[in-house]
């Protein structure tokens, strides 16, 4: 185990970095798209059911099949992987964002409406800060799911920690498989903790007076 680490730490680090990069890229697309969809549905009253249904259907496509479908369209590599992961992530993000917005005390919304806020003013000043914790919670779930599924994206040449796992399987090398698994878990735990810290921060900001 340690011999492999000492010999290949650069290679392992690059695998983790490319994995993390892929997830970051997914979020760079998924968060603005989901925010736009959330605003479209919540503020502009676009019907939620068709949007959620489409996202649900996309979410039920098995990842390997989804990758395979995309290869003829967007080719092998990171691009196809990111598209798939963005689709999956939208499911968590949109659902959580809407739940956060709809979970706000209706009396608070009524008070804000009675004040004469413009729709935009009310969204930015009242609703968004109060729904932030739910949006971040959705982001955390999306990251967790993406980190796992991204391992399979090696199959379409997207790199990442999947490289080590798949090589390990091909060569029947338990050392490689074990290291691959450890790296995925370590990345998941690190990202999870980072997102939890963000979630706590925004939860506090949404109600700073509450002492937990």
């Amino acid at each position, binding site marked *: 185990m340690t011999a492999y680490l000492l010999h290949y730490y650069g290679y392992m680090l690059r695998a983790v970095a490319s994995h993390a990069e892929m997830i970051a890229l997914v979020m760079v697309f998924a968060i603005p798209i989901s925010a736009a969809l959330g605003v479209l549905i919540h503020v502009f009253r676009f019907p939620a059911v068709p949007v959620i249904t489409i996202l649900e259907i996309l979410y039920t496509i098995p990842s390997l099949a989804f990758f395979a479908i995309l290869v003829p369209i967007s080719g092998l590599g990171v691009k196809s992987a990111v598209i798939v992961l963005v689709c999956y992530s939208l499911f968590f993000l949109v659902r959580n964002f809407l739940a956060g917005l709809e979970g706000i005390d209706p*009396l*608070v919304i009524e*008070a804000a409406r*009675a*004040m*004469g806020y413009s729709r935009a*003013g009310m969204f930015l*000043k009242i609703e968004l800060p*109060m729904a932030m914790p739910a949006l971040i919670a959705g982001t955390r779930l999306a990251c967790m799911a993406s980190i796992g599924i991204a391992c399979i994206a090696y199959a379409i040449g997207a790199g990442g920690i999947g490289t080590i796992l798949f090589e390990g399987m091909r060569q029947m090398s338990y050392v490689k498989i074990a290291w691959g698994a450890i790296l995925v878990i370590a990345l998941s735990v690190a990202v999870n903790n980072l997102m939890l810290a963000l979630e706590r921060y925004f939860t506090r900001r949404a109600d700073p*007076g509450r002492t937990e």
Partner: protein
Amino acid sequence: MNAIEFADVKKSYGASEAVRGVSMAVEEGSLVALMGASGSGKTTMLKMVNRLVVPTSGKVLFFGGDTASMDVTALRKKIGYVLQAAALFPHMTVAGNISTIPEILGWDKARTRSRVSELLSLMGLDPDEFAARYPSQLSGGQQQRVGIARAMAGEPRVLLMDEPFGALDVITRSRLQDDLLRIHGRDGTTILFVTHDIDEAFRLGGRVAVMNGGVMAQYGTPREIVKNPADDYVRQLLNFLSVEALKRAEKDTK
């Protein structure tokens, strides 16, 4: 001039009728107490003034203009609204909550700040102690007082208050009733004040409107109501009026 006028206003929610054809006028600068049993339509009446609720039929006029054809945010900026629950914004400090309307109205910082201190003091909350607190660091009664301050912050022409003192102890309540009468006398703000409590209604209201099951049982000065109760419901209600309030109403000339 009437600040608010209801003209044969009805509101139904599906099959149930919350308000069944009410006409009443609230004169500019007056304080009208709207009372009645739970579910009699008081909150619905208030919300039809700032169009949180749209009447099923009939008209609500605001200073003579039909609210149905007004720009709704412009209308709401002229009306302060105190909810039955405080419903403060949890992510803003007490000062932030009270500043929301001045900010919407575009007041400058200095004016907003002095208005916040003035209102907190008026509500019996020391600005140094309370301005920087968050709503969940306040007792229910303190929250309610901040809710009142928030509604009054923009110096609205009309103030709608939905059982604002319901959650307060008798001493604070009585003090705030005095304060409300004083502010009303000083600023001449038109106030439509909902309450369950007949003593409170008679103490505050220059006129009292009694709702019963979505209709207006009687609308008049405390004296008129005491002298000539319109129906059995009002008579029954008067049995619960305290002796002092009754005496005050009998010689009332306000």
